[in-house]
């Protein structure tokens, strides 16, 4: 019974995509209803797998049409769900379910919702299939569906400025990524004569031939494009900005996680290359460059969603650096950060969407003072900003903390100075992330409210509910990270490092032993120093102490006064005695003190990010060439 769940979840989404197109074209409610039911059922099916896979350690395998292996050669398409797949599948279902919920309120002014939901279901189904399939060509098919659904959704609001441009950039760079992947897969097929990942893994366990190395480089580059690793990050900024926000959230929550998943699956399972020093260093450097470039570009942005897009790139840099280390600690940190990124970046995109929906713009120069009009959104945003900047007790802190520890441990163990630089980069990027969210806080939620936004109201409840859920999850997974580690991260990291079970589940018992696949033993990661419960208790005790002093001193201390009466000058902000109405200053370019020292760097960045697709395509080609070259020169 259980083994049908993964394939049912995927098929359901694809089928309902067609049903929505047939029956939902006329009525908004029907389209919404079908999409939500499909998303809910599919999410339920995946959640039902937590117990057998994560806790009992089963691996679910399923042969489509019962085409089981013949004479130890896999000929059919197999679905295989181990803890790693399920970990990402959980992220995917959570994201698209919340996005669907958010779409109800967010998309209600748009036309052609039938098409929207069709594409939404296609995208959800493809990413879900991508993370659960056991067949490498099926993986490619899912990547293609994902890319084209994403392109169409990017251009969904094609009346708005830049939508078609963003979609076109996405289309060009995305198809290049798909072609790299396809070439790699073709090479791999020529080498191994099979498309089943478990079988390829056992065939390649004897050592990588030059063909396999070429395939490895191309596939890594292909998934690098999907996860927007530098230098493939270029279409991300436009696509995230112009897509409807519910879709931006899907992009950052699922689509680039699909890229990360592909990388982990290839490095750790198919090619077993995680203990090769070259791969580790190369990807760690790519990751460090990605996080640094993303955050510095974000500091220069004047557009809320574009800024978030660059932060997405930056955070993926953390994930790539962490998973490239090849250690259990690094993998745990990377997976944890991938999960946290899904949560907090989703939350931030939702708040951006609420601002866009309620105010009509996300230009930081035209916003300000919304905290009094949208208090709930503000609080949710502050939670998300705290989480992404890695402030305790939110989840970003826990995962970043593991990542720092993992990189520095790697540096100390291997004696390579480059990892020290990566550690410093990771720590400094965290502060810069904080800086750019301070900028958003000041420019959007605090500061002076603009005259034309006097009548802005809070977002409707159906849009706020996903925000509450995400804010809650951000805090909960930061405080109870032990729980998360035990039931999600440890099984997933374990599955990535011990593949003989994965191979046996697909190809029959004993297959892995014949192929002499080596396993790594994984000890559960111990979090000895950071115990958020203690800190929270301390926080609570001190808070109660402070509250007692404040309340006890009510007769002694001065009063706290506030008033919303505009005639009372006492409550104006002080602007050298001027009237309040003359004191408006925008907050979108806060960091000139920082940027003036980086003029040369920003000039260079401006030249690189020219907005011309030809440049971006050549950057992608150069990036792929560098990856393949590194592999060939240093791997043997």
């Amino acid at each position, binding site marked *: 019974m259980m083994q049908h769940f993964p394939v049912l979840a995927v098929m359901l989404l694809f089928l309902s995509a067609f049903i929505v197109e047939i029956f939902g074209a006329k009525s908004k409610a029907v389209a919404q209803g079908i999409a939500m039911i499909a998303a809910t059922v599919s999410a339920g099916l995946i959640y039902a797998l937590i117990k057998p896979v994560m806790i009992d350690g089963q691996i679910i395998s399923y042969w489509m049409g019962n085409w089981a292996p013949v004479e130890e050669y896999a000929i059919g398409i197999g679905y295989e769900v181990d803890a790693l797949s399920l970990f990402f599948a959980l992220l995917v279902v959570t994201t698209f379910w919340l996005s669907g919920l958010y779409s109800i309120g967010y998309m209600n002014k748009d036309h052609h919702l039938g098409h929207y939901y069709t594409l939404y279901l296609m995208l959800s189904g493809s990413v879900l299939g991508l993370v659960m399939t056991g067949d490498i060509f099926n993986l490619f098919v899912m990547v293609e569906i994902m890319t084209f659904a994403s392109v169409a959704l990017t251009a969904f609001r094609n009346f708005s400025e830049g939508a078609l441009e963003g979609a076109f950039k996405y289309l060009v760079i995305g198809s290049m990524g798909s072609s790299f992947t396809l070439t790699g897969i073709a090479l791999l097929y020529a080498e191994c004569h099979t498309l089943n990942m478990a079988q390829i893994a056992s065939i390649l366990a004897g050592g990588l031939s030059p063909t396999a190395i070429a395939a490895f480089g191309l596939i890594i580059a292909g998934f690098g494009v999907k996860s927007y690793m530098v230098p493939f990050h270029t279409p991300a900024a436009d696509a995230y900005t112009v897509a409807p926000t519910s879709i931006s959230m899907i992009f950052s929550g699922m689509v680039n996680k699909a890229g990360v998943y592909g990388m982990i699956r290839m490095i750790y399972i198919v090619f077993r290359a995680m203990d090769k020093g070259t791969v580790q260093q190369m990807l760690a450097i790519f990751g460090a460059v990605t996080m640094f470039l993303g955050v510095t570009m974000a500091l220069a942005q004047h557009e809320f969603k574009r800024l978030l897009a660059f932060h997405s790139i930056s955070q993926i840099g953390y994930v790539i650096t962490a998973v490239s280390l090849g250690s259990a600690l690094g993998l745990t940190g990377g997976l944890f950060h991938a999960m946290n990124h899904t949560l907090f970046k989703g939350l931030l995109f939702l708040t951006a969407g609420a601002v866009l929906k309620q105010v009509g713009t996300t230009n930081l120069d035209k916003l300000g*003072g919304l*905290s*009094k009009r949208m*208090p709930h959104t*503000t609080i949710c945003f*502050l939670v998300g900003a705290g989480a992404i900047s890695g402030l*305790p007790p939110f989840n970003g802190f826990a995962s970043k*903390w593991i990542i720092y*520890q993992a990189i*520095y*441990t790697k540096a*100390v*163990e291997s004696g390579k100075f480059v990892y*020290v630089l990566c550690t*410093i980069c990771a*720590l*400094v990027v965290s*502060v*810069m992330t*904080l*800086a750019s969210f*301070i900028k958003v*806080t*000041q420019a959007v939620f*605090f*500061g*002076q*409210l603009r005259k034309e936004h006097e009548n802005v109201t809070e977002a409707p409840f159906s849009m706020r509910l996903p925000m509450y859920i995400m804010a809650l999850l951000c805090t909960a997974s930061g405080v109870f990270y032990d729980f998360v580690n035990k039931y999600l991260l440890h099984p997933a990291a374990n599955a990535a490092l011990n593949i003989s079970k994965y191979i046996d589940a697909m190809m029959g018992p004993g297959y892995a032993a014949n192929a002499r696949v080596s396993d790594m033993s994984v000890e559960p990661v111990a979090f*000895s*120093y950071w115990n958020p419960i203690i*800190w929270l208790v*301390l*926080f609570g*005790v*001190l*808070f109660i102490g*402070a509250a007692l002093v*404040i309340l006890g001193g009510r007769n*002694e201390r*001065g*009063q*706290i*006064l*506030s008033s*919303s*009466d*505009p005639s009372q000058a*006492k*409550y*104006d*902000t*002080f*602007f*050298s005695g001027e009237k309040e109405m003359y*004191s408006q200053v925008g*907050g979108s370019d*806060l*960091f000139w*003190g920082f940027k003036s*020292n980086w003029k040369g760097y920003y000039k260079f960045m401006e030249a690189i990010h020219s907005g011309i697709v030809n440049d971006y395509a050549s950057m992608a080609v150069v990036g792929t060439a560098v990856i393949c070259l590194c592999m060939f020169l240093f791997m043997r």
Partner: protein
Amino acid sequence: MEILKSIFYILVFPGALFTMVAGLWLAGVDRKVIAKMQKRIGPPILQPTYDFFKLMGKETIVPRVANRLVFLGAPVIGFISLAIIMLFIPIFGFTAFSGSADLIVILYLITISGVALIVGGSSSGSPYAGIGISREMVTMMSYELPFVIILLTVAKKVGGADLVFSMDAIGAWQRANGSLLFQWSMIPAALAMLLVIPAEVGVQPFDVAEAETEICEGPLIEYSGAALGVFKLNTAMKMIIMTGLFTSLFLGGFTTGIVALDVLIFVAICTVLTLLCMTTIHAVTARLKIEHLFRFYWTFVAGLAMASLILVWCGL
């Protein structure tokens, strides 16, 4: 009994009350000695205490555009995070909550107090505060780079082949091998740390964020009464925390065996450090511009720290 002991630790020593008293003492000494350096009589040592209590007795006005919850909550959050840090900084042999101290956590908690100031200032809606928080944030980015390198240097020096981020382990290492300051490869890092302290606390050449003569105290502009008092207290508490952190990182390793005496020596060393790296620099320099501050920290101070890191990495 254990609970009472913990509550004593949290609220009295070495938590909230001790940090407050020691911080106000350092702030008082700082003001008095500056006055002496400028041939003035100067305020009494208790002046910061008087300031604090006076502010407690004044009205707290919440501006109309401010978000009341954030505006009043920010100083309290900053205060709590600072009071917690002191619990995890060992005072020579004595730690209130041993085993859970971690350098990275301390780094982030210090950041939280800065963020509290920034968010509080930001929520007040004043344009001066907008400029102030920008400068505060750039200052934070400036000193964070050298600070991070210093922490990594100490971790590598103490840990050798293992990874050690724990304050306890650093203390234990110093008890076995002598203070880290007397390792010559650590001297550049210690110097860099001495330069990080004034920026972290925000004293004269590095107080660009709160420049009262040009941007009306920046983030604090709209604060009055008790909320302002708590922010002023936070600054004073940062003095003892940063100098205390220096003492634990670089000058740990000996103990008299009596906690009270240890604490006295600890506070004495902190006072000397305050005079060295805050008062003297304050008395002889004028305020920097924000671009200069950033460049100074990312080149000179970070270079010092990096030199130490490379020396330590070479096994010296």
